[in-house]
């Protein structure tokens, strides 16, 4: 009796609906809510919200700094992945494990670390100060925070490609008399490039969205050190939720486009 009750079809149905409902309520509803909310007072209000110079300057600044951080990450990430896969040296496994630390560490802690390391009271900060240069509360600190937070993406995207790479193409290139430089640019780099591209796009979208590390180290001066996510936070704090929602829609749409591009690149690769 009890067992037939447990095996009743209604259980399966109820279980499936609960899981799907949880998913729709938790993920789809909030995202739809932001879009609906930012257009709830019509196009004019939306346009007015995003044409506030403080707002669009924050978005442009975020794009610029995220782009710089991504370029830095592509350079140091490609190098690190190469070294971690191709060379054997003391401390290799240690470095390989701490690559993921920026993912595991709370972003606020990451920001605090940069603040303590480069802040006005640290010796690095003082040294930079005497050279007439400042990190913290200025744009360099925001870039460093973005680089720190997105550091693992490029490395982790390239590593598997390098490990799977067929050595015969590289050897053939050497045998045919190509120089090291030619081999790198003609043979090795092309096989790493899908990883570099998808890693860079992930890093870029993460840098665009970054808040925790940035809010601690940025001076939050409109037009100079106020990033989009910090601007949104400020608008929520000052009870201008419509303004916050409008900028969120811009930022979200950008991130979704990047995510869609990454998927397109990856499906093309696996096909």
């Amino acid at each position, binding site marked *: 009796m009890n067992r037939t009750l447990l095996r009743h079809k209604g259980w*399966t149905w109820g279980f*499936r609906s609960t*899981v*799907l409902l*949880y*998913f729709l309520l*938790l*993920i*789809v509803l*909030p*995202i739809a*809510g*932001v879009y609906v909310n930012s257009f709830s007072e019509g196009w004019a209000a939306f346009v007015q919200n995003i044409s506030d110079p403080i707002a669009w300057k924050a978005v442009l600044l975020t794009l610029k700094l995220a782009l710089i951080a991504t370029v830095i990450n592509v350079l*140091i990430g490609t*190098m*690190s992945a190469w*070294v*971690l896969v191709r*060379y054997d040296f003391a401390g290799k496994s240690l*470095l390989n*494990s*701490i690559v*993921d*630390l*920026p993912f*595991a*560490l*709370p*972003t*606020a*802690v990451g920001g*605090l*670390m940069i*603040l*303590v*390391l480069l802040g006005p009271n*640290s010796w690095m900060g003082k040294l930079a100060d005497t050279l007439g240069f400042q990190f913290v509360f200025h744009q360099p600190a925001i870039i460093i925070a973005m*680089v*720190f937070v997105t*550091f693992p993406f490029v490395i982790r995207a390239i590593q598997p490609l390098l490990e799977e790479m067929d050595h015969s193409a590289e050897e053939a290139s050497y045998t045919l008399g190509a120089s090291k430089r030619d081999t790198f640019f003609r043979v090795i780099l092309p096989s790493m490039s899908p990883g570099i591209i998808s890693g860079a796009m992930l890093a870029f979208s993460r840098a665009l*969205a*970054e*808040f*925790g590390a940035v*809010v*601690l180290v940025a001076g939050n001066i409109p037009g100079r050190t106020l990033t989009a*996510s*910090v601007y*949104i*936070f400020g608008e*929520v704090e000052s009870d201008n*939720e419509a303004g916050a*929602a409008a900028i*969120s829609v811009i*930022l*979200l749409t950008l*991130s*979704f486009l*990047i*995510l869609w591009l990454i998927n397109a690149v990856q499906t093309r690769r696996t096909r």
Partner: protein
Amino acid sequence: MRKYWIPLTWIVFSILILIPLAVLATGAFDKGTSGFIAALSRPEARHALMMTGLIVLVVTILNGLFGIMMGIYLVRGTWLSRRVRQLFNSIVDLPYAVSPVIGGLMIVLLLGPDTVIGTFFEQIGFKVVYAFPGMVIATLFVTFPLMVREVMPVLQELGNDQEEAASTLGAYSWTTFWKVTWPSIRWAVIYGTILTVARSLGEFGAVLVVSGNIINKTQTATTLVYQDMENFNVTAANGVALVLAIFSVGLLLLMERAKKRKGVH
């Protein structure tokens, strides 16, 4: 070339990760061990750490269970059409692309005191935003993809031959799950759990927006670090941050061990 690349990689890792960690650790003790203990034994610090612990617990359990089921449905759920599954599959990743602050804003817009749902809950004496439930929902949103994305590839690689064999031989769905599916996804689930714990432990932006950061009420460990820093209480901020960092490093070590056993056997 290798003469230059290896030292250069060491330099990058040192500047970006190792030295900042060391500075954080020494910063927590710059007023001696007593300063570190004082920072942690403040009532607000103890309360914040407790809040973080509670959020991690609730979020990991909920998103663990629902994440596993969602992963299974997206791979095996033939009762959903292929199209629907593809659509849901791409929606799962969306929280990755959402800035945590926006994640928090979404919850405020949907459940805040000025909204229909928010007023309804307020009337029955249940506060969502600027209270514990809102903080849990915000963290649930941010961490949802982690478990789903760990479980799915393992199920896809595994194929469903064994499961079909089990159910053809007369095993009921629960038995099939426990005896066939579970053993093969176990390490992926453990890995996903560690990721979820790490992410919910460190969630800052979404929680800051939803919680209002009210001291001794809705303050978590990460938002306390932020507030200490705003109040120029650097030693205290370092102390709490060091505790969080130690947890993160511990979780990272666990991740390393789980990663090796994660794949299909």
